[in-house]
C-alpha cells in the first residue's frame, strides 16, 4: 500500500507517461513543469500538452478555472486504469478483485488526505463536491445541535452553496441567520463580524477565497475571533477555491469543517470531500442512510459504521476518488507554492492589462491579495455581451452572478464578468483577453 513509487519520466513534455510497475499510472506532471515553476508566467506552469482538451485546442484561452479546471491526462488515465484493471464494488466482495478495488479506493483517500494536511484520514469523507459537503454539515450537525434562538453567521460574499444552505438550516431550526457585511474593496468587515459573535452563535460559515472576486480571507484571524467571542460555534470553511490554488493544511487552519470540490482541482466532476474534526463527526447523526454506513441493522433500530463510512451511504464513487487522488499527485508534483506564485503573477498582470482599458472596473482587493480571479465590468457593456464577444476571440470567461446574488447586491451590480486562472494559464492568455475586451469596448463604447 506504499504510495512511494518510482516514476519513469520521459523527456518530452506532455507525452503520455510510462506507468509504474503494475500500479496506477504516474500522476506527475511532465518534467517541464518543474523547470517552468522557476520561470516566468510567460510559460504555463502545468504544460498545456498535459491537458488533452487544451492540447487539442491550441488557440483556446480557457479563463474559467474558478468554475472548473481542465483535466490533466494523468487524471483521465488513472480513472481508466482503475476501471480496466481494478474495478469491482469496494467493501463488498470476498474475491480478490473487490479487494483490489477497495485498496485503490483507500489509497485514494490517503493521498487526498495527505494533500490537504489531514493526519487522520478517516475524518476525510468523500462527497459529490463542496455543495454536498456543506449540506452534509448543515443537515447532520445542524439537526443535532441547532435550536430556536441560536445564531448562524455567514458573510455577504458567500457562494449560494454556503449562504442558502445555512439560511434554510437556520430558518428550519428557528435560529437567527446573520450576515457579516463587507468593506468597499470586498473583504469581510471584521469589525462587523466581531459584533455578530456571541454565546448564542453556533455556526460561522465563510469562504476561504471568494469565488466571485478572489478575495483571500484571513482565516487565522477570523478563527481567533470566533473562538474568543463565540466559544460554542463550529467554523465551516468553504474551500472550493482554496484547495486548487493554495497549499492547504487542515491541521493548521484551525477550522472545524473544510469542504472542497475535486473538479476545480483538475479531478473529475462529482468528486470532492468534507474534512471534519473527529469528535464532531462522531457525535453527528448520519447524513444519508443506506448501504455501507451501517454497523448492524436490527428490526427496530440501526447502529452506524465508523468514520468515514458513516457518512458515505451507498456504493462509493471510488473511480472518481482515484481520479481525484491523481489530481492531488499532479498538483503536489508541481508544488502548491509554485501554483500560487504563478497564479499571483498572472492575476497581477491580467488586472493591470484590463484596468488599462478605459471604462473597465476591477472588483475586489488589490490583485496581490486575490487568488487568480479578475472580476470586472466594462462601462456600457453587460457582462453577458462581453462574454459573447470574448468567446468570438476564443476567450472563455464566466458572466453572471457567480452563484453570489447577495454579493452582487452589495456591489450594486446584477452581474460581473469573471476571468480566472489556473496552473496552465500563461501571459498569452492575458494578452488575448486584453485584446478581446478592447474589441468589446469598441462595440459598446460608442
Amino acid at each position, binding site marked *: 500500500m506504499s504510495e512511494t513509487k518510482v516514476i519513469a519520466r520521459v523527456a518530452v513534455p506532455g507525452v503520455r507517461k510510462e506507468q509504474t510497475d503494475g500500479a496506477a499510472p504516474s500522476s506527475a506532471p511532465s518534467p517541464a513543469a518543474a523547470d517552468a515553476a522557476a520561470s516566468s508566467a510567460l510559460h504555463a506552469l502545468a504544460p498545456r500538452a498535459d491537458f488533452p482538451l487544451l492540447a487539442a485546442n491550441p488557440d483556446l484561452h480557457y479563463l474559467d478555472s474558478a468554475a472548473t479546471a481542465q483535466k490533466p491526462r494523468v487524471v483521465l488515465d488513472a480513472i481508466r486504469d482503475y476501471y480496466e484493471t481494478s474495478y469491482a464494488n469496494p467493501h463488498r466482495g470476498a474475491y480478490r478483485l473487490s479487494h483490489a478495488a477497495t485498496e485503490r479506493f483507500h489509497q485514494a483517500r490517503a493521498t487526498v488526505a495527505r494533500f490537504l494536511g489531514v493526519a487522520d484520514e478517516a475524518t476525510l469523507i468523500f462527497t459529490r463536491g463542496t455543495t454536498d459537503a456543506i449540506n452534509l454539515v448543515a443537515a447532520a450537525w445542524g439537526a443535532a445541535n441547532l435550536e430556536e434562538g441560536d445564531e448562524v453567521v455567514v458573510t455577504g460574499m458567500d457562494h449560494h452553496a454556503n449562504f442558502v444552505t445555512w439560511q434554510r438550516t437556520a430558518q428550519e431550526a428557528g435560529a437567527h441567520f446573520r450576515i457579516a457585511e463587507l468593506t468597499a474593496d470586498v473583504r469581510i468587515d471584521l469589525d462587523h463580524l466581531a459584533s455578530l459573535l456571541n454565546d448564542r452563535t453556533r455556526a460561522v460559515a465563510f469562504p476561504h477565497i471568494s469565488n466571485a472576486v478572489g478575495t483571500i480571507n484571513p482565516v487565522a484571524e477570523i478563527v481567533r475571533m470566533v473562538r474568543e467571542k463565540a466559544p460554542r460555534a463550529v467554523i465551516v470553511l468553504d474551500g472550493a477555491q482554496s484547495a486548487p490554488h493554495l497549499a492547504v493544511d487542515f491541521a493548521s487552519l484551525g477550522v472545524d469543517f473544510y469542504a472542497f470540490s475535486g473538479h476545480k482541482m483538475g479531478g473529475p466532476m462529482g468528486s470532492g470531500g468534507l474534512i471534519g474534526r473527529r469528535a464532531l463527526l462522531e457525535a453527528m447523526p448520519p447524513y444519508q442512510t443506506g448501504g455501507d454506513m451501517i454497523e448492524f441493522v436490527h428490526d427496530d433500530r440501526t447502529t452506524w459504521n465508523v468514520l468515514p463510512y458513516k457518512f458515505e451511504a451507498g456504493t462509493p464513487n471510488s473511480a472518481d476518488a482515484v481520479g481525484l487522488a491523481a489530481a492531488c499527485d499532479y498538483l503536489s508534483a508541481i508544488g502548491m507554492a509554485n501554483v500560487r506564485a504563478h497564479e499571483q503573477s498572472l492575476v497581477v498582470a491580467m488586472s493591470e492589462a484590463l484596468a488599462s482599458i478605459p471604462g473597465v472596473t476591477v472588483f475586489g482587493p488589490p490583485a496581490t491579495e486575490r487568488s487568480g480571479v479578475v472580476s470586472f465590468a466594462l462601462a*456600457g*457593456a*453587460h*457582462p*453577458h*455581451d462581453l462574454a*459573447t*464577444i470574448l468567446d*468570438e476571440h476564443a476567450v472563455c470567461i464566466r*458572466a*453572471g*452572478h457567480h452563484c453570489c*446574488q447577495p454579493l*452582487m447586491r452589495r456591489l450594486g451590480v*446584477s*452581474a460581473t464578468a469573471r476571468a480566472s486562472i489556473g496552473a496552465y494559464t500563461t501571459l498569452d492568455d492575458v494578452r488575448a483577453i486584453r485584446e478581446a475586451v478592447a474589441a468589446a469596448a469598441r*462595440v*459598446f463604447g*460608442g
Partner: protein
Amino acid sequence: MTNLDSLYQEVLLDHYRKPRNKGVLEGATAQADGRNPLCGDEVNVAVTMEGDRVAAVKFTGQGCSISQASASVMTQLVDGKSEAEIEALFERFHGLVTGTAPLAEGEAKQLGAMAAFAGVSKYPTRVKCATMSWHTLRKAMGHE
C-alpha cells in the same frame, strides 16, 4: 458581415442604449415578470388591453443588450396589435432567433427592427436573452 457584427447590429445597439417604451405603465390591465436566473436578467412587461388589442405597453428591467433591445423592439411591434397578430409576430421572431426559420430573401424590410435579431441564431446561449421579453408578454396575456 462577421457573426459578431450581425449579432450587434446598430439597430440593436440603438435600442439597447435608448430603449423605447421603458418605464412604468399606469393603469395596466395585465403584467408579468420574466427572469433568467443564470445571468440575472429580469424584465417586467405591462399592457393595457382594449378588447383583444394592446392599447399600451411598457417594460422595465435590466440585463444584457440582447434582452433589453428585444424588449424595446417588441413593445413597438405589438403596440395596437391583436392577440392573434402578436402570436404570429412571436412565432416569426422565435423562428428567426432559434434559426428554425431564417430570414427569407427580401423579408428584412417587412420585418423592420425584428430582422436585427436574426444574428442571434448563431449564438445558442443568447436565444433566451432575446425571447425573454416575448415570453413575459405572452405570460401577461395568459398565453403561457
